[in-house]
């Protein structure tokens, strides 16, 4: 069977033109997706856990869904300060239930945002965000900047769908008509096709932004001959390219958000874009990694007022990144139970945090064994959104997309499993 216009549930590009061919419950062919997407979709039914597993002494034993759900609810109800973490690779509906459950439990809910684009959000909260949908970029942008990111490898179709190779209304031959600037600390694949590659010394982003702002403002006289390894000449050239573009689109990744200076870098980038809007049109977009990490920010925000790291222990929504973020809570050994949904902190968190995870009852909701599995006491496999579960996801530019299914493997969805845990919690802790 051929399924057209499917949505790839891998990265924040959320490509929605994927063609998947299935025979029974096997995927035999995937068209249009990049290698990352194809790999995820082709292996749709592989490596999945058959059913829930629970710790049994040093090993594992199989459990029923009822048993695992009962266990998860019990663990959360017993805890004084439960942490509900993850949420970036699941559907919006599950995220919403997660927020309601955290609220009722008086727990903390956080998404993987706090270890990727959290700093971008802090900057946006200070100075705002001049952005647009990706179709605006595709139709209008004659200048693209990628800063601290490598879309060729992390968002492989970003350039063909939305930027360098995407023809648009005002650019019929985009590859010739668009200019590409890449800024990075090393020469990446993306940098190799740039019209202008700017190599800055690690940690130099903030200074480079400041220099560019000064030049754009007409105060190039204060800029020294080189800034973080970049010559003034090149900075002037880039500033001129930006000012003379009809529409510039600036994209940045964790290479900028997690570099020294963190959220200050982004703040400086946004203020540069603000400044450029006095001369021409310029927009800025964080390249979000997981396909629905932005969705978690959206859902958390309309329900609680804050995009991530929301602490309900005072019965109100309290937010203070650095205090209420998952890594900090784990590092301080504050939480006494953890529910991890659709993410893999085992592969990303500091050792100290992981040690704490192993010392408390940690439940993982994830389709496959991951690096986080050994840290947990119980894992509940679920359907994968975009493969055997449908739901809502938000693209990196905020466009909400309905993610569809093409297989039925009989697994419950994240929404179903979390919904059932939540029902058990509600039985004990009535609203």
């Amino acid at each position, binding site marked *: 069977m051929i399924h057209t216009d499917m949505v790839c549930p891998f990265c924040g590009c959320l490509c929605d033109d994927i063609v998947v061919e299935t025979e029974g419950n096997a995927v035999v062919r995937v068209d249009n997706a990049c290698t990352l997407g194809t790999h995820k979709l082709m292996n749709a039914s592989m490596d999945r856990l058959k059913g829930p597993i629970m710790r049994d002494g040093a090993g594992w034993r199989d459990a029923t869904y009822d048993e695992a759900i009962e266990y998860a609810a019990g663990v959360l109800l017993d805890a004084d300060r439960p942490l509900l973490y993850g949420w970036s690779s699941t559907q919006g509906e599950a995220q919403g239930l997660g927020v309601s459950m955290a609220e009722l439990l008086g727990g903390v809910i956080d998404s993987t945002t706090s270890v990727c684009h959290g700093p971008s959000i802090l900057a946006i909260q200070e100075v705002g965000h001049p952005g647009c949908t990706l179709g605006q970029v595709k139709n209008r942008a004659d200048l693209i900047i990628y800063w601290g990111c490598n879309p060729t490898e992390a968002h492989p179709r970003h350039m063909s769908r939305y930027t360098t190779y995407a023809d648009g209304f005002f650019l019929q031959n985009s590859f010739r008509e668009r200019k590409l600037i890449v800024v990075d600390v090393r020469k990446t694949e993306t940098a190799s096709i740039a019209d202008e590659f700017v190599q800055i010394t690690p940690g130099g982003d903030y200074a480079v932004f400041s220099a560019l702002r000064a030049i754009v403002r007409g105060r190039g006289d204060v800029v020294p001959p080189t800034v973080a390894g970049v010559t003034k000449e090149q900075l002037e050239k880039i500033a001129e390219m930006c000012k003379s573009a009809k529409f510039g689109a600036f994209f940045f990744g964790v290479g900028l958000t997690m570099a020294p200076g963190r959220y200050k870098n982004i703040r400086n980038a946004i203020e540069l874009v603000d400044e450029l809007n006095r001369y021409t049109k310029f927009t800025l977009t964080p390249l979000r990694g997981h396909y629905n990490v932005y969705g978690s920010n959206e859902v958390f925000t309309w329900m609680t007022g804050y995009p991530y790291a929301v602490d309900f222990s005072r019965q*109100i929504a309290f937010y203070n990144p650095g205090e209420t973020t998952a890594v900090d809570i784990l590092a301080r050994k504050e939480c006494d139970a953890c529910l991890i949904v659709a993410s893999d902190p085992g592969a990303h968190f500091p050792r100290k945090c992981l040690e704490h995870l192993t010392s408390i009852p940690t439940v993982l909701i994830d389709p496959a064994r991951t690096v986080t599995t050994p840290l947990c006491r119980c894992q509940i496999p679920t359907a994968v959104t975009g493969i055997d579960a449908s739901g809502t996801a938000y693209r990196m530019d905020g466009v909400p997309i309905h993610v569809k299914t093409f297989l039925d493997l009989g697994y419950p969805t994240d929404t179903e499993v979390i919904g059932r845990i939540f029902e058990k919690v509600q039985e004990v802790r009535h609203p």
Partner: protein
Amino acid sequence: MSELLVKNAYVIDPINHIDGEVMDIAVRDGRIVEDVGPKATVIDARGCLTLPGGVDSHTHVCGTKVNFGRYMSPEDMRAGREARRGVKHATSGYSVPTTYANSYRYAVMGYTTLLEGAMAPLEARHTHEEFSATPLQDMMANTLFDGNWGVMNAIRDGDQDRVAEIVGWTLSAVKGFGIKLTNPGGTEAWGFGKNLTCINDEVPNFGVTPIEIIQAMIRACETLRLPHSVHLHCNNLGNPGNYACTLGTFNQIPDLNEKRQTLYATHVQFHSYGGSDWKTFCSKAEPVAYTVNNLPQIVIDMGQVMFGKTTTMTADGPMEFNLYRLHHDKWSNHDVELETGSGIIPVFYRRKNLVNSIMWAIGLELALLVKNPWQCMLTTDNPNGAPFVKYPEIIALLMSKKYRDAEFATVHPDTGSRVVLPALDRELDWNEIAVMTRAGQAKALGITGIGKGHLGLGAEADIAVYPIRVGEVDPAQEYRKVIDAFSRTKYTIKRGRPVTRDGEILVHGENTTIWVDPKMGPGHDISQDTEFVKMFDRYYSVRMSNYPVQDEYLKRSLRMETEAVF
């Protein structure tokens, strides 16, 4: 079967010409009926002003830009924080509160139906998701067409049928309610950082003018038999001297519909400015109101500004950037491909600021100078002029000259020479307030037929019971009592079920989303048109098949089907 009897209510129901009658209201299964049995739940409304549930025909409570307003404003969230309690979720926020906070606060003020003023079609799913987290009001979404490429191309080609076909298809696809035009053409110009000054400027690259867009959309609206008229945010918002553009627009609006207005002009306060710059800035509410008085085909809403902190948000992207350059606080912008744009900035309206003081006066002047209350709705363009929680104060200002004078004494001392407010003696009565806050709004939206905005037999039992004895309170003198009463109902009843009592939230409700599905007949299905499909394929960043909002996004859905007549 559920039955409810609201006894001894002092009822004002302008649509049914009831103006202060003490009566019982019987409700069965969510609708108003002749009478109910002895087992009905009884609510004693003795002496209480009882009105149909409030309707807000222009507010911003759900959707991409509202949520981005929250996202960028943790400082706003720290205000309005309330703990979870009973069925009530925790709330945050003052000017852009969370969905729950919006819903609770509106409910406590007696509002049961809300129209989200601006939904970008491409991002409609988001608006509907937030609607499903807005438990206590029925919701509608006006759909943005101000910079729609398909529409502008059809207008340029002189193909009026095509305009209607695109609008009809889009409304059905995104489950929208009516047509919204925000700075028509200007948002497209903003795609390359430009704007238009008024209705005769040409939209760059599209060869059409705003007035052509407005008139073509008005004709399309009538072709599609939409319940609501075109809902227009005029060009040149917020600039000194813009009243001329507003009048120029109003004077070119035909009168095409006997049942309702042909144009709903929104937040007209922001469009009634005289002077040639900020130094000579003054009120032009008089000429604007006189024009409205002479044009029954136009209904306006005030867009009242109230002093204090708020967040402005509009699809008018270039206007927000200009404001940002004045305020220098923070600025967000979000342009939507082939359709529209938007901007957000926080503002603080100050009494000490002359321009802000004049703005405050203009909204009140409009409401007092427009003779017919059915032509002027009470709004703040929430949260642009002020958060909606300020409505009770606005009601009191309109009912009491004494209160207006007292407030006027606190604004910038030069305001007097720039406005006419101190000379206006009119004090609105209860009936007029009822028109401006529910009956008139429901009529303007075209939803009285589905039982909104009135308490007649068969109407939706959306009822607001306010703790104030109309005969015993003189609103002109005791305006504090008016503010208190309108701030908190004794009961708000939604679909026959009490949802709040004395400010307490009683239930976790479920709203109905009201949307319009125009049936266009064979030969008018634009989704089969090769040119339209080609435009979609080439220029949108989502596939056409992934664009429509699935039914599952609407928990309860009320589809208003219309038959287009080409």
